């Protein structure tokens, strides 16, 4: 609520980035975030319980609620234990967490950057695809270069590919007002098919094979793995360095200041002599670079070759990360690590207890539901605290 003055109107105050940055590090918000996790895992447990084969069998056999509950609880226990062990339980587990976090941090930044300019990028997936395709192509097709030249070249190609796919919705928004939510989704779907098609052409396909899988990335373009047998590679270092650059860009540079002003109040930004259209294009292009790099890190790192659907769901993962990080760079990195653990744990859970990895998607979505609507968490846990409503960050169709 704004201060009650004579000018008071019914339009709500737009909650601000800086206010949210402060809120993130102060107690109330951190506690709500923690509660959001608790609530999400509780709901996930319910889902786990009701879909457990033993529990259903107990129910169908008419063994009574106790038997059902017992089976359900043991399913939940098994599942979540596997998840926890899979995320942190060993060097290998931590390695897997970092591998997942690498991509999550980068796709998260692909959402965080344009969010500063008031743009909601759900095109992370398309940007990842483009980055993976471009980086991967350079990675296997260009031969005879040393690692120090080839790898950066492949990464640069990944960034360029992603940048192009980010640039398109930026320009469309700036020039025609086409809302980025629609145009980025359409690009995602388009690029998915383009990727499948490319993988069946001689450009990418392994000679003599008919399945849509690309040739392997040459060793000179692979991200080095510092810990021998563990899958973690220098991609995580790269992601953190990029996060540092983005931190400077958004919080210290004139470019970020412009993005923030445009995102917060485009009219005032125009009146200050800023270039709103340019900021829109720049914000989306930077996002594309981060997304493209995520695709590059994936293909040049753990994957080693391009397969169909390698990007599936990564764009939405990035949204989760960015929203959980509340639009700050530090928050995005932290959220990327956290959700990386969730994801690595989820994979281990799927392997060990047979619980589908999709549960992780559900839990992730629930976390964001609760983060986006703090009032809901308060209602669930009967927490009292100041500040009423959820935060408004995106722009409507007309913007």
């Amino acid at each position, binding site marked *: 609520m704004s201060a009650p003055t004579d000018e008071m109107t019914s339009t709500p105050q737009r909650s601000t980035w800086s206010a949210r940055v402060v809120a993130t590090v102060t107690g109330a918000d951190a506690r709500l975030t923690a509660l959001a996790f608790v609530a999400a895992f509780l709901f996930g447990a319910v889902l786990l319980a009701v879909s457990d084969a033993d529990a259903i069998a107990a129910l169908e056999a008419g063994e009574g609620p106790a038997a059902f509950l017992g089976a359900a609880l043991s399913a939940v226990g098994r599942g979540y234990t596997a998840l926890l062990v899979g995320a942190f339980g060993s060097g290998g587990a931590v390695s897997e967490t970092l591998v997942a976090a690498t991509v999550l941090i980068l796709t998260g930044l692909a959402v965080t950057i344009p969010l500063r300019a008031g743009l909601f990028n759900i095109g992370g997936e398309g940007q990842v695809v483009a980055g993976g395709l471009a980086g991967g192509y350079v990675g296997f097709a260009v031969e005879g270069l040393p690692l120090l030249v080839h790898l950066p070249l492949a990464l640069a190609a990944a960034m360029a590919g992603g940048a192009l796919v980010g640039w398109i919705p930026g320009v469309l928004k700036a020039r025609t007002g086409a809302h980025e939510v629609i145009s980025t*989704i359409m*690009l995602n779907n388009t690029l998915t098919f383009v990727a499948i098609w490319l993988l069946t052409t001689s450009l990418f396909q392994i000679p003599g094979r008919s399945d849509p899988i690309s040739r392997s990335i040459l060793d000179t373009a692979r991200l080095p793995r510092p810990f021998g047998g563990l899958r973690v590679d220098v991609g995580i270092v790269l992601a953190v360095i990029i996060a540092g650059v983005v931190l400077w860009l958004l919080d210290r540079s004139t470019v970020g200041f412009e993005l923030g002003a445009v995102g917060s109040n485009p009219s005032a930004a125009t009146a200050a002599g800023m270039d709103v259209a340019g900021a829109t294009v720049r914000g989306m292009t930077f996002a594309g670079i981060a997304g493209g790099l995520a695709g590059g890190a994936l293909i040049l790192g753990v994957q080693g070759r391009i397969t169909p659907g390698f990007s599936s769901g990564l764009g*939405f993962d990035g949204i989760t990360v960015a929203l959980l990080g509340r639009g700050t760079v530090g928050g995005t990195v932290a959220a990327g690590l956290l959700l990386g653990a969730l994801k690595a744990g989820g994979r281990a859970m799927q392997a060990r207890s047979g619980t589908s990895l999709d549960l992780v998607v559900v839990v992730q979505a*629930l976390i*964001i539901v609760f983060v*986006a609507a703090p009032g809901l968490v308060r209602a669930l846990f009967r927490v009292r605290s100041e500040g009423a409503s*959820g935060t408004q960050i995106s*722009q409507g169709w007309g913007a």
Partner: protein
Amino acid sequence: MNPLERAARRRQLRFALVTLVLAVVPAFLLAPDGAGQRATFVLADARGERVVLEPLQVAVTPTVVTLAVLIALLGALQLARDLGRRAPVAVGAAAGLLVLAVLVWAGAGESVSVVALLRGTLFAAVPIAFGAMAGVLSERAGVINIAIEGQFLGGAFAAAVLASVVGSAWAGLLGGVVAGALIGVLLALLTIRYQADQIVSGVVLIVLATGVTSFLTSQLLSVNPDWNSPVRFQATAVPVLGDIPLLGSIVFRQTMLVYLMLITVVVLQFALFRTRWGLRLRSVGEHPAAADTVGIDVLRTRFRAVVLGGVLAGVGGSWFTLEAASQFAKEMTAGRGFIALAAMLVGRFSPVGALSAALLFGFSDALATALQRLPVPLPSTLLRTAPYVVTLLVVAGLIGRLRVPAADGKPYVKA
């Protein structure tokens, strides 16, 4: 020439140029290809119509050239005159002619069923139109509904399971409606009660619906295949109307959801713009404070609109498993919820407009399917991008001509 006129002139030239470029494709790429061949367009369906129209045969090269000339003329017209706000329409018309040229070219030496193409168009438009109407209801009342894709998924899943378990397509439809409405309730709670960001809420609900349906598919449906073998709606011809030549075959020999969609469009169009209910619903989307001061309960009106929208989107979702495919598959809606959103925007927040836009997207879908069957030197994977590319181009072509309900996307907080 003043700056506004200069900008207008630049815009005019740009549109003219685009149109002229469109003429290049048929003139130089397509026309030489089909020399001496004829394309056959089948105008009847082999399903016992009373009147059977003769197929239409055209010579490929002359027809394509004629179409190219027409496109070029449209371009020339735009060079000569500024069509202003109608310029995108002219470009659209040129694109339509180009599509026709492609069809003629692709049909060289083959036969193309116009009936199948247009019937497929209407059929593919069903979920888009329902989804777009869900959006219209919700956004006319002031709540942005991005969650349509999620409502589709939830509806498709519930419809598949119920139609399988109960053994009736109608039960499936009910299931779809309930699932869609349920996600509508969640969206309404998040955006209206808890005032969460509306676009974020919608996206989150999509992820949630994707996760839950995918999880349950892996955990339950893959283990119990008979929970995922829905009884589906069959095509039924409408008596009398189904016998109208061409039109009858296209519109009145369809499935249940097609009829339901057409009826819903008419009813909703009337209800929104001619009734007290519609006036009140639109008032809370335009100026909630004004509605509030005359005693209209803004939050309740919005809540109901969003949930009713969920019902419609749920019907649209049912189409996927009760009519289009034989069972539920993970993420089977493939972005159609977003195409529905685009249809809502292009159709300017009206049911009839949404249907027109949905038909355009349905056509791109049906055309891609038709082309895949013809010996066209285009990879079929790439053809499947058609609906998405068309959506992208059409949304970009709107160019600031959108009038959005004034309070759309803004939570209402009392003074």
